[in-house]
């Protein structure tokens, strides 16, 4: 008997010094179904991370006491030595200068959201962007069949609508590239390669799988990406971890191939 999946509400920590924004962001995130905790500087973020768990951190770049860049560097250190999990850190900024995104990435942030996206009429776009960075265990929780949905039919339909007649070509490219990334990961595992080499393949697999709605593959790829990222910061190899995960990934790939082929045939 199938049980209903228990969807956990993502808890997002927001650091923002302006009260108008604080008020707005908190309401916006709550309205999207997230829990939000808002603080006014980077130092408060570091304090809270000692005692509470968050699924994502949104950091304003320009704040008093400790700005977003400085906080992001310290959070990266905490992630690297395992004091906290691999929580995505996203810049939240009204800066529109050349080099601003690069500055955020150099500080260790994973992504970048322009503050103009908080505009009310852009709410759906913002929601999609946040969901892109949230761990899949929250965005699309597992069902009780062990692996969850193989593909998300809504995402597949939307992709079809978006690309039209190019759907078949897109899926063929996705499957071919995904197979290559999996082969590369197997090669890395066999050669006990440094974990950092696995991160890029897992990253590419995660995002291409998400784009076409291949949920099960995306979920496993994301797990590999996060684990490899942690191991790489400890200069460890990824062979044992990949040897455990890759058989699941290969099974997920095969199920996805069948499911997406059915979608092509039906279109």
């Amino acid at each position: 008997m199938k049980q209903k999946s228990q969807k956990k509400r993502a808890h997002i920590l927001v650091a923002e010094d302006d009260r108008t924004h604080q008020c707005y962001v908190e309401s916006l995130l709550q309205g999207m179904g997230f829990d939000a905790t808002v603080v006014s500087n980077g130092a408060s973020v570091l304090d809270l991370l000692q005692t509470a768990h968050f699924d994502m951190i949104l950091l304003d770049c320009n704040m008093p006491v400790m700005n977003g860049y400085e906080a992001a560097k310290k959070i990266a250190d905490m992630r690297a030595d395992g004091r906290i999990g691999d929580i995505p850190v996203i810049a939240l900024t009204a800066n529109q200068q050349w080099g601003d995104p690069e500055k955020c990435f150099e500080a260790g942030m994973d992504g970048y959201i322009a503050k103009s996206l908080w505009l009310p009429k852009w709410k759906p776009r913002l929601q999609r962007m946040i969901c892109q960075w949230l761990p899949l265990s929250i965005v699309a929780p597992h069902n009780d069949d062990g692996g969850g949905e193989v593909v998300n039919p809504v995402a597949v339909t939307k992709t079809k609508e978006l690309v039209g007649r190019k759907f078949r070509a897109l899926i063929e490219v996705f499957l071919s590239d995904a197979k290559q990334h999996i082969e590369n990961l197997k090669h890395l595992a066999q050669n006990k390669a440094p974990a950092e080499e696995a991160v890029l393949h897992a990253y590419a697999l995660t995002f291409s799988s998400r784009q076409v709605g291949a949920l099960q593959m995306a979920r496993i790829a994301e797990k590999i990406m996060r684990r490899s990222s942690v191991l790489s910061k400890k200069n460890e190899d990824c062979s044992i971890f990949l040897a455990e995960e890759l058989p699941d990934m290969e099974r997920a790939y095969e199920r996805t191939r069948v499911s997406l082929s059915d979608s092509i045939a039906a279109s």
Partner: protein
Amino acid sequence: MVVICLKKGILMNKPILDEESVSAAKQIMKGKFPTMLQYFLEDTDAYLMRMRTGMAEKKTEEIVSTAHTIKSSSLQIGAVRMSDIAQEIEEAARAQVENGCCDREFFAPLVTRLEETFAATKAAFK
């Protein structure tokens, strides 16, 4: 100078409030909109004072940072004309920071325009 005049011309064409943004913000904020508005009005007063102090003391970075905050907070609440003027000030101040100068005479009319627009924004929200 021509560019500045053209930009001012564009700015004057923008409404004080973008009604669509204001009503969407009210919908999202639900009962908390009056609180957000109160924060916006109180804090913008303080930011404008800091901007004036920055001008008087020739601290261009202070002008950049306050204009930067006003630019985004006013946009959030639908005060689009204020946001555009604040952006104009921020960009000019950034350029002056890069050149290591602070031309008070250049900023004075823009800051006055921002203060006047803030007064008009307050009135529009009443």
